[in-house]
Every structure is written in structure tokens, then in C-alpha cells.
């Protein structure tokens, strides 16, 4: 990996940063099964996917999307937005977990354990 990606546990410089802790940071997950029988269904599906991507959700697996939210309030905003763009047909699940819970997830590629997605830092250096 050539990308220089310094991330610090925020702190150090000027005192405590309790506001950004693992219990306040939320991950919003959206799971969906949408019909693709007719042309219109496929269109609705594509539109929904595009809209949640525009809201900052990133693909975790096919039809499972994730978004990192720095607070409970922020998570509520994005949950509300997903609700406002629900497709006319199909199943959609919205779930919200704390960063603590999210961090306990185990992800495998084949038999190999891979790293969980990183928490978004308030400050990132590229």
C-alpha cells in the first residue's frame, strides 16, 4: 500500500475528546431485496441504490450498504433520508449499531479473517 494514511487516536494535543467515543459513533446498515422482474422494477432498484450511495452509503456486500455516522443524531438523519427514498416494492431493512458493536464483527474472505472497515476520523491526512 503506497497511500500514506496517518490516523491518530484523536487526543494528544489538547485534552479529552470523549465526544467521539465508540458508543456514540454509529454505523447505519441498509439491507435490501428488491424485485427485478420488470423493466420498471429494475429501474426502481437502480435508482434506490444510486440514491443511498449519494447519501454516503458504501457497499459492504451485494445489497448491504453501510454508512459511518459520527453521532446518534447524525445516524437518525440518514435513517430518515433512507426512509424517504424507499422503493415502491421489495424488502428493505435499516439497522443502526454502535461502533463498539460494529467493531466486534468478524469478516472472512475465504477462511482468512480480514480487517473491519475503519472508523472515519474527524481528521484525515492523505
Amino acid at each position, binding site marked *: *500500500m503506497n497511500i500514506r494514511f*496517518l490516523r491518530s487516536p484523536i487526543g494528544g494535543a489538547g485534552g479529552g*475528546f470523549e*465526544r467521539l467515543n465508540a458508543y456514540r459513533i454509529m454505523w447505519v446498515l441498509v439491507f435490501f431485496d428488491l424485485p427485478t422482474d420488470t423493466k420498471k422494477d429494475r429501474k426502481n432498484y437502480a435508482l434506490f441504490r444510486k440514491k443511498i450511495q*449519494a*447519501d454516503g452509503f458504501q457497499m459492504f456486500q451485494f445489497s448491504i450498504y453501510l454508512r459511518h455516522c459520527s453521532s446518534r443524531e447524525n445516524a437518525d438523519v440518514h435513517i430518515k433520508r433512507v426512509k424517504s427514498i424507499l422503493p415502491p416494492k421489495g424488502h428493505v431493512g435499516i439497522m443502526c449499531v454502535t461502533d463498539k458493536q460494529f467493531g466486534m464483527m468478524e469478516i472472512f474472505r475465504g477462511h482468512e479473517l480480514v480487517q473491519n472497515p475503519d472508523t472515519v476520523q*474527524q481528521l484525515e*491526512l*492523505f
Partner: protein
Amino acid sequence: MIKRTLYFGNPAYLKTANEQLVIEMHDSGETKAAPIEDIGILILDHQQITITQALLAKLLANNTAVITCDHTHHPTGLMLNLDGNTLQSQHFQAQLEASAPLKKQLWQQTVAAKIQNQAAILAIQREENKLLLNYAANVKSGDSENHEAQAAAYYWKRIFPDFLEFRRERHGPPPNNLLNYGYAILRALVARNLVASGLLPTFGIHHRNQYNAYCLADDIMEPYRPYVDKVVCHIIRGNGRFLEMTPTMKKDLLAIPAMDVIIDEQKSPLMNAVQRTTASLVKCFEGKARKLLYPVLQ
């Protein structure tokens, strides 16, 4: 919510897709995405960064402060949006029509808050601060006795350890460079929040240099400066006299927006505190309040 600060110090291609900022790193070809609405400050500090106009437009539409740096890595420019608030023409009016006595009172509060915070820094550095506390308690309307400058002279002489022989100058030797860097971040943050509150960062309550585009930002950031000084003191403690800017120092300074400060007896990140300060300023201009909310350093 705390907005994110993104700093680019390596060659990168920045573009946008789906309302996201897409970052393509030159050397690795790796791409990353970040939601534009979550970004508060974007710092461009490399000669080989390419950025698309569509991205700039979207960043500004989301009220991001875009800072560009020159080849010496010092911030040179700050770009802000023109319509940061829906009531802005009403707020502009109130700001421009603010009476001289009101402005003087606001400046009095600002100077008092600044000196108070400077005194707190000296206390942290285990230096005598009674004189500053005395100055802070006796600031006159419009700071007619210029306590700000007297306090500054006293403060800068004592804040850093003895081996530094420090003189505060814009282009002076370190740690002036660290202070300038930190203040530039702070200024961008304050200017961004002023715009978001529907104020003109150009027309100050005290500063009125015809060549300065951010007079009001410079006024309002005064009480926040000691927070930067605190971070610089911390850096000096770790590095002694070796104060050429390193990435670690930069990281410490860039963490300033997320620092916790006490404002209105509540703990909040500095970035949000500035927001409360600018909002209280609007209320003062509109005659709905008389007190500017400033953080209290402890």
C-alpha cells in the same frame, strides 16, 4: 455534529461522483470516497493535486472551507460559499447597521475573553498571571485603554520556556511558524462559521484594515487563539527547540477543530463552540442579546 477535516499532502486527483468526494491517489491508483456533506474543512497542500470544478462547486454548496497552501506549505487562500444562510441578507443588514457603541461593547467582551484565556494558559505554564486577570477584569468599552496589546506584550514574554527567546512576528523563527499554521486553521474555521450564520466575514467589529478580507473572522477568533497557543506549548514540550514543522506537529495542529472546549458551561468540540459564538453574534447584531458566547479556558 463535528464535520471532518481532510488534509491532502500528497499527489492526488480529486473528483466527485454521487455527491461523494472521490480521492484517487496518484502513486497507488487507490480510490476512496467521502460524503461531501460531512466535510467541514478541506486543505490542499501539494503542488500535484488536481481538483475538478464540479467538486469545488459541490464543496462550496455544502459550506466547506477550502484552504490552499503554497510551496512552503503555508495556507495562502481560503474559499467560502456566498450563500451560507437562508436569512443572510437580513443578517447582513443587521451587521452593517450595527451601532458604534454596540460594536465597542462586543469588542470589550472579546478582549476580556481573550485576556482571560491567555491568563489561563500562563497558569497552565506555571507562570504568574495576576496582571492579566487584572487587565481582563478592567477592559473598557471598545478597549479604549488598549489592554489587549499590554496583555499581549506580557503574555508573549512568558508563555514559552526560557530557552526560546521568543518574539511574536509573522515571519519570525519557530515557533512562529507553528502559531501561524494553527491560526490559519482557526481563521478558516471561524470564517466558515460566520458565513454559515449569515454574516459577512469582511466587516469587522474592531479590525478594519482595507486590505483584509476577513476582519470579522480576525475579531471573533481572538479568544480562541490561546487554544492554538496551548497546542503549540504542548508541541514545544515534546520537541524542545527543534521546531521545524514535521507531520506529527501538523497532525497536532490539525486536531484543533476537534479539541474540547468549555462554552456556556458545557463541553463541546471547538468547531461547534465557534458555531455557537457566531450564532450569538448574530443575536447581538439583531438586538436580541447582549452577550457574546465565548469559550472559557481552564
